[in-house]
């Protein structure tokens, strides 16, 4: 019996690809955000609302991660922003290699912000670095105020928390303060916005913050 010391991170291959993406984004001067939520929390609706507000203020493009359909990419294209679809064919997350393969479809030097909509899932996408600058977690109030404590890794890693569907608060039993309290424990420097992509409440504040962050 012999023991060989290895000491290698299991995800080192993905991390290398992600790091190459990050260098490529840095060289081109483009910022990249990775939007993560469960299915139906409102990522695509948030994109439609955000892009409408920012498309004359920033040069934008979108990568849509979707298990099977191209519907989300079409919704983004309808706003007038270039969107490239990655069909993961069942995979529960995007990875650094998938992003690397779609990058040639973009003129990165002429972009300010690339937004990635990850596959709807609170667990798997978090383990796979894409080379992004910022993870944005979207949590809709209908999912329950216990989600940050049940999925702490995402809510720790996310630099921004967007609590969506606050128009529905009067009809449900969700303690939004509990969401914020848990997230503050997990990530004291996280930036948080409460919003409704239905009524538009809070979306301007988020879009203004994002524009300032991109230009900083």
């Amino acid at each position, binding site marked *: 019996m*012999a023991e060989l010391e290895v000491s*290698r991170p299991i995800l080192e*291959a993905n991390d290398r690809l992600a790091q190459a993406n990050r260098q490529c984004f840095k060289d081109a001067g483009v910022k990249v955000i990775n939007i993560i939520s469960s299915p139906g929390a409102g990522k695509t609706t948030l994109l439609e609302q955000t892009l409408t507000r920012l498309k004359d203020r920033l040069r934008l493009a979108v990568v849509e991660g979707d298990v099977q359909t191209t519907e989300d990419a079409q919704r983004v294209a309808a706003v007038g922003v270039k969107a490239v679809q990655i069909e993961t064919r069942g995979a529960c997350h995007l990875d650094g290699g998938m992003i690397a393969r779609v990058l040639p479809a973009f003129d990165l030097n002429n972009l300010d912000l690339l937004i990635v909509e990850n596959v709807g899932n609170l667990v798997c996408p978090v383990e796979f670095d894409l080379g992004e600058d910022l993870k944005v977690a979207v949590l809709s109030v209908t999912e329950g105020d216990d989600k940050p404590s049940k999925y*702490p890794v*995402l809510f720790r890693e996310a630099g921004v928390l967007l609590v969506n569907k606050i128009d529905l608060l009067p009809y449900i039993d969700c303690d939004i303060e509990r969401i914020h309290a848990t997230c503050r424990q997990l990530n004291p*420097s996280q930036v948080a916005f409460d919003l409704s992509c239905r009524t538009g409440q809070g979306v301007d504040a988020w879009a203004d913050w994002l524009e300032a962050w991109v230009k900083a």
Partner: protein
Amino acid sequence: MHELSIAQSLLDIVVEEAIRHGVSKVRRVGVRVGAFTNVVPDSLSFCFDLIKEGTVAEGAELKLTPVPLAGLCQDCGAELDMSEAVFSCPQCQSANVKVTQGQELLIDYIETDEG
């Protein structure tokens, strides 16, 4: 089921190390899994067993060692037990906390018959 992709990356490294060291049969793979990762140890073992057939790791079992989350306050130097996933210092309230363990996903060692 991202454990399948993680198991595949794990197997790739094991096979690569086996080739590099001229090993023909891997018996055991030691893996450290941080408590603050989204990896379920049982499902990682399950996926690894599915894909190891026909490789040098065919007869290998995973030895998974869970690593609890812990940190160090960068302001007052307190060592922090972070099992409650609170990322600030209970002594001095500082949010300037460095995680020292519990987020790793690491192949520690490989055991073989040879040698």
